[in-house]
Each structure stands twice: as C-alpha cells, then as structure tokens.
C-alpha cells in the first residue's frame, strides 16, 4: 500500500502551532538561543568561580590558573550552560523539582520552518536530518584540512605550513572525520530510518535523542577551537608521553572526545532499547532488515567500547593538567597502558564505523538487484561474529609497540579470522546481484563502489594482519592507504549510498540522478588515484605523519596531491545537488525504489508519527520476486494476505 503526501498532509496538520510568544520574559527565560547567550557565560562563570574559590581556599598560587579554568569553565561547565539554555534539560528539571512539565502537545515534533532545526526537537526524523547536515559540515571542514595537508606534501620540502600547524592539521582532520563525521553520520541515518523500519512512532527516548544530538556541535567546535590554543598535534591516537608534553590545546581533544563519546553512548542505548522494545507486531529478530541488525550490533559495540576511550583521554588530561602519572614508568605508570586502553576502544571503533554501512549496503543492493539478500541469517550472524571478534584484536595496532612478543600471535589469529565473516558478507552481496535485475541508480553505484573499495581495503588488511609484513609496513603510508580504503572507500561510500537512497524519504524530493552519478564516478576515480599509490610509497619507505620526506617520493606525492584536490572538488557536486534538490527537486513518490521495508510504505516525508496505523509484519524484509509476498500489511489490506497464506498452506 502506498500513502501519498496529499492523503496525510504536512506535519502542521497534525500538531497545533506552539503557544504564541509573550513578551521579553519569554524571550529571555524560555528555551532558545537567547537563553543560550546568557546561560553559557553564566556557567563558565560558575566553573571559573569553582576553580578560583578552591585555589583561594587552599592557598595555591596562582589563584587564577587558566589551565584549570579552561578545562572546568570553558570545556565542562559552559557546554552544560549551552545545553541548558537551549532547553535540553527543561523537562527533566521541571519534573525533578515538582514543577508542571510541558504537556505533550507535539510541538517538539516535526519541523515547520527551517528554524525548527536549530532548537531542541524530539522528532527522530528532525534529529536524523540535524545529524546528517551537521556531520556533512564537519566532513567538509575535515576535508579542507586534508587538502591543506596534501598541499604541504605535494613537494618534498617544507614549503606551505609550519610543523606545528601541519601536525595539528592531520590530527584534527582525523578526529573530525572519525568522531564528528563517520560515527555520527551513521547514527543520523539510522536515527531517521531505523524507527520507520521497525514500525515504531519514534525512538524509545526522544528527549535523550535530542540531547545526544546537541552534544555533537559542542565536540566539533572544541576540536576546531584547538587550533587557537596550540595545539593538538599528537595525531588522533594521542599517544603518551607525546600528548602529555604537547601544548595546552591538547586538552581540547581530550574533552571533545568526552562530549562526542557521551553522544555516541546515549544514542546507542537509545537504539538498543528501541530495537528491543518497539518493534511492530510480527517483527521478530529474524524479520528485521539488516540495517536494524547492523545498528543493533554497532550499538552493543558503542556501549561496551566507548567508555575506554573516555577513560584513556581522561588519564591523558589528568597527567597533563593535574600532573598525575598514569603512563610515566619512572613514577609507577606504564607507557603502553595508554595504547592498550586506547585501542581497546579504537579497534572496535573501526567496526562501529563500518557495520552500519554494511547494513545500508545490504538494503540498497537487495532493493536495486530486485532479489532477496543472499543468506540473510548468515549475514546477520556474521555481524554478531564481527562484534565478538572485534573485541579480541586490539593489540594488532601494537605489533611493534614493545608489548610482550608472544601476544602478537593470538592477536594475529583473531585479526585474520575476522576476514572470514567479512568475506561472507562480500560474497553474499555479490550473490545477491547474481541473476538479479540490477538497477544502476546512484545509491547502487555507491554500494557497489563500496564493495570494490572494501575488497581492496580488506586485502591490504590481510597484509597488515600478518605480523612480519606489519612490522615492515607499520606507521608508513601503506597504513594511510589501508585506513582510507576502508574508511573513505568503505564508510564514506556507504554513507553516500544511504544519503542518496533515503534522500527522497527524508526530504520528500528527488535528487538529480545525473549529478549523483557524476559525483560517484569522479569520487571513485579520484579515491583510487589518491590512495592506491600510497600503498607503493609506504612499502618503499615513506613514513606517515611527516611534513617533509625523501625526494625519491616526490613524483608520486605530486600525483597524489593533484588527485586529492580532484577528490575534494567532487564533493562540491554533492553539496550543490543536495541543496538544489532539497529546495527545488521534483516531488518524491512514497516508494521510488519499490522497496519492501516499512519506511517505503509511508509517505515521503513520513507522517508526524510515522504510521497512522500500526503495521503488522507478516514476512521477511526482502521478498523480491516472491509472488504476492509482503513484509508488512496495514489494516486495510490484511484480508488479502490472510487469503494468500491459506493458499500457501
């Protein structure tokens, strides 16, 4: 069944407009940006007061100690003031203090005008769009830094930026791409699509959902601000003791990771509870679309692993600001302890950054090939296998770090074993296309492009998993090539597949197919021209994280830099296409891809609470080619299906 916009009306038809505004008190004290403007400095002042007060009482000199004031006032208290000003805590505080809470008039749902995207909004669809647009902003910022890095590396000499700036550029580039783009972009897409896919009206905790979104800009601004307090230049891995001896700006990274990590954990909890408790009737685990499976396993990874990076960065910050000695062996610390804790998060994090993409690609390939996903159960189980194995491989980042030599063997075994479930997924995608009716639309191009890039990245991963080769290739451009094949050719391609695939659903408009294809082919060619040669120069002896290098790598680097600029330019096509299509694109039908999952059974964009009647799930999500089969029915057409089932039995 299809429901059009006309039948359901725009969101405003469902919700009454918010109460008319009343005078200056409302503007000053009501939730919003004006309250942000005074509450943020107020909270900074409170943090300032706490630090100065304690130091004055204890008689420490100097009383006004800016390092501590910035950490407590600017990086901890002021963001809380920002969130409070915006109204993230209003409901809970009113409830806690016995005040009347705002009645559920649905005014926190839906977006009626563009300004609604700039306030606390509890609608998962609005939050999903907030996430995606915010993360694309930080993606462009991080990409700009990559362009500057490549400008420096175009020629062997140091001729563009100074070494400190160079180190900050690649450090902040990686941090933004990981913590402000890939991880939250997946969270954003799933935020929009996942409740629709399981037949739920919203996420389980809408207010928590809004809060976890608004933590993101805080983290992103902190990372960008590190440039003004030089500097965070120890690489995104932030290894001690180098990070402890960095200038003060390093704490901006330590704290930004706390905000981004908190956002991740809250969202993951929200997904877990939503998936476990809010599935539509009939939606058993074995009837969930693979995107839901992917986000289920990812959320488990996030909830279990993220506290470790939070801990590791707190330790670094304490060592730096409070002069503790977690990692100084002369003072009873252990220098490799940092790396173990850091990678115990950061290896599972690479699966946090790819499993949701696996889910997106499974949806796209099945729909666009007009065939059921091949080996659905094994596809879901391989996600679970990756989840489990993913926690047992962290020290493969430390093969040359100086840990106990024997530990390298078990880590190599688990690392290479993880190739098996990953291989199962690749083979299953290919088998899904086999004998299908493949429709090479833009999302499908990105999905297939992802598979090809991920195969190359997976194969270079096998080289790195084999300890003897890793000893040679570790910390070279071979590593840079590998991570960009799996994170850029991998995660980024799946994000684009998802954005193009659900763009009609999210905006109610179609994007321009020609521009989408141009964007794909330009990016695809530029990615390979940029990153494939990095394998060669890395193996030949070019270390990573250097601003000047042996002139013998000059020609390759010039070629790589030019390709990288083409790659950077290709995203301008994407931005143009998205902006123009969102504003003026042709109206999208409810189900432009003829998909069977639930999000395609409602209008584009969906009604305010997703489903006007609760769907009844009656079958698997990918029943393409099965005559008369349906994933779900609504009251109106239930009889038809019951009839069919009788015939079948």
């Amino acid at each position, binding site marked *: 069944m299809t429901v059009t916009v006309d039948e359901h009306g725009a969101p405003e038809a469902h919700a009454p407009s918010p109460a008319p505004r009343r005078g200056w008190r409302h503007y000053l004290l009501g939730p919003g940006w004006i309250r942000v403007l005074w509450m943020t400095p107020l909270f900074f002042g409170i943090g300032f007061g706490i630090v100065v007060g304690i130091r004055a009482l204890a008689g420490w000199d100097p009383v006004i100690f800016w390092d501590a004031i910035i950490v407590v006032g600017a990086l901890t208290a002021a963001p809380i003031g920002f969130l409070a000003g915006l109204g993230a805590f209003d409901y809970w505080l009113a409830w806690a203090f016995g005040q009347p809470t705002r009645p559920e008039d649905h005014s926190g749902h839906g977006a009626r005008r563009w300004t609604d995207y700039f306030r606390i909004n509890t609608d998962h669809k609005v939050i999903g769009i907030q996430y995606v647009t915010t993360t694309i902003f930080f993606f462009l910022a991080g990409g700009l830094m990559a362009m500057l890095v490549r400008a420096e590396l175009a020629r062997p000499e140091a001729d563009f930026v100074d070494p400190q700036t160079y180190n900050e550029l690649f450090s902040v580039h990686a941090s933004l791409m990981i913590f402000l783009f890939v991880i939250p972009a997946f969270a954003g897409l799933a935020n929009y699509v996942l409740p629709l896919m399981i037949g739920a009206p919203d996420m389980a905790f809408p207010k928590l959902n809004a809060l976890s979104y608004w933590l993101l800009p805080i983290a992103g601004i902190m990372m960008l601000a590190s440039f003004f307090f030089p500097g965070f230049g120890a690489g995104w891995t932030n290894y001690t003791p180098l990070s402890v001896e960095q200038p003060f700006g390093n704490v901006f990274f330590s704290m930004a990771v706390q905000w981004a990590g908190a956002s991740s954990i809250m969202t993951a909890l929200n997904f877990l509870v939503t998936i476990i408790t809010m599935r539509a009737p009939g939606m058993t685990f074995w009837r969930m679309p693979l995107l839901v499976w992917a986000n289920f396993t990812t959320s488990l990874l996030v909830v279990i692993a993220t506290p470790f990076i939070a801990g590791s960065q707190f330790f670094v910050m304490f060592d730096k600001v409070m002069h503790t000695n977690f990692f100084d062996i002369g003072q009873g610390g252990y220098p490799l302890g940092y790396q173990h804790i850091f990678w115990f998060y950061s290896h599972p994090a690479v699966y946090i950054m790819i499993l949701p993409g696996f889910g997106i690609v499974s949806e796209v390939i099945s729909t666009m090939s007009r065939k059921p996903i091949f080996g659905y159960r094994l596809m879901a189980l391989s996600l679970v296998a990756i989840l489990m194995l993913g926690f047992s491989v962290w020290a493969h980042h430390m093969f040359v770090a100086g840990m106990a030599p024997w530990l390298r063997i078990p880590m190599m075994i688990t690392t290479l074993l993880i190739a098996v479930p990953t291989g199962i997924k690749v083979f299953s995608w290919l088998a899904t296309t086999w004998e299908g009716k493949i429709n090479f639309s833009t999302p499908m191009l990105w999905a297939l492009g992802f598979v*090809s890039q991920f195969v190359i990245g997976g*194969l270079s991963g096998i080289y790195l998993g084999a300890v003897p080769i890793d000893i040679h290739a570790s*910390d070279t451009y071979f590593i840079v090539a590998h991570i960009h094949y799996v994170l850029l050719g991998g995660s980024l391609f799946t994000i684009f597949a998802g954005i193009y695939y659900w763009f009609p659903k999210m905006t109610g408009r179609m994007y321009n197919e020609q521009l989408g294809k141009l964007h794909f082919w330009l990016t695809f060619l530029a990615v390979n021209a940029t990153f494939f040669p990095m394998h060669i120069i890395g193996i030949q002896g070019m270390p990573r994280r250097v601003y000047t290098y042996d002139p013998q790598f000059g020609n390759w680097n010039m070629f790589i830099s030019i390709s990288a600029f083409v790659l950077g330019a290709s995203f301008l096509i994407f931005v143009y296409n998205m902006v123009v299509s969102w504003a003026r694109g042709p109206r999208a039908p409810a189900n432009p891809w003829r998909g069977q999952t639930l999000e395609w059974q409602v209008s584009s964009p969906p009604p305010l609470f997703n489903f006007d009647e609760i769907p009844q799930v009656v079958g698997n999500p990918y029943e393409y080619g099965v005559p008369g089969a349906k994933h779900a029915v609504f009251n109106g057409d239930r009889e038809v299906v019951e009839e069919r089932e009788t015939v079948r039995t």
Partner: protein
Amino acid sequence: MRAGSLIRVLLVALLLAAIATAVAIFVPWLPDQASKEGERIDFVFWFVTAVCIAIFSVVASLSVYSLIKFRAKPDDDSDGPPVHGHTGIEITWTVIPLILVIAMIVVSSVALAQNDRDPSNSMRVEVLGQQFAWLVAYPPDGAAEDMDGFICFNRGPDNAIEVAERCKTSPNLVLPLDQPVRLHLTARDVIHSFWVPEFRQKQDAVPGLKTELTVTPTKIGNYPFICTELCGLGHALMRTRAIVMQQSEFEAWRQRGAR
C-alpha cells in the same frame, strides 16, 4: 551456473589475475633487501600476495560478470528469481577463506619466530631515541647490564639517561656484514620507532622500557634509518643512515676514536 557462464567467468578471472600479477611484479614494491630477517618477511609478503591475487581475481571476476550480465533493461520492472540462499555455497565460502587464513597464520608465525630469535653469536648494540636524533652505542665486550637492562644508558641522579663513557657512540647505525646484531632500544623522552626499510625490521623505542630486535645485514650499503613514530615537531627530520660494511672495516671503525 551453466557451463557457458562458468567458462566466461573463468576467462575474466584469469585476465584479472594476470593484470594483478603484473602489478605485483612490475611495480617496484619492496625496497632493496639487505637483511636475513628481510628475506623471511619478503617471503611472507609474496605468499600473502599470491593468496590475495587469487581472492581478488575470484571476487572481481564474479562481480564484473554479474554486473554486466544482469543489468536491468531500461523498462524492465520485474524482479529477479527469489533465491534466499544456498547452504552448500555458504559453507564453501566460509571454509575456503578459513583454510587460506590458517595457512597465512602458520607462515607468518614461523617467520616471526625465526626473526625474533637472539642468536648466540649476536653482537649487542644499544639504540637511544631522543627528540630528534638517534644515538647508537656499542658496549665493550663482557660489560654487565644495569638494573634497566642497558650497558650504555644509565639513569643519572635526576633520573635522566646518561650515556656511559666506556661505550663508543655514533649518530649512525654502523653494522658489520653477515653478523647477527641484537638491538636493545629505549627512548629518552617520547616514543620513537626504529626502522630501516632495507632491513624490513621495525621496533618502537619506549621511554622506560627496553625493547629488542634482531638484524642480520646481508648486503654492504648505506640505507635510510628513520623514526616512524610521531615524536613531535622534528619527527620528519629524525632520519639518519644505517651503514653496513665489511667485518674488518667495521672493527677498524669501532677502534677509531674509541673512548
């Protein structure tokens, strides 16, 4: 799959394997090889390359064939056959990669075990990483290690590392030909990493810890000796030379200016 399409897929696979093999052979991947450990690492490298070419040509040929053959006609709105899976095929593509993975694990483990050995006739060399230069120290024969396990690098009164006067020191790594060398590494300030691409061997030098590495040079030459762990602003400049010379030449060098 019918016989006709099987043959076509095989042809594509052979073509792709040939291209991948050409890329593997004709692109100058590995730098010169100048150590016995490097020989074993290179063997693992080419073994893994062979496996990867096989996997790549199977995956790539199936995808190329599938994407060309099964593309939908412009006005074809029908669905593909409702194939949900095939247990036999699924077991096959779980088991075969498993076997390949085990083979690579075995080959890697053997090479690693051989490269990690400290031969009884090895010569001891101590290496200190510091911002932003390497210091190589050659301890006199028979000298005893201190509590931290070093002969040449001792902790002074303020816990800072001091270089013992009885050791010959050099900013370059100078090694005799065909002599197994056991490197004992540490660092003064932050983590550095020892790497000579021609030796293939790499090991972090960590402040407060002792790490070890075996290198047996097999070719006379002058090679880059690079820090590969980001160690601060001068990281990119922390590069010097590793020089391999004849035994007799090395002995003469070692006596020269010995303290």
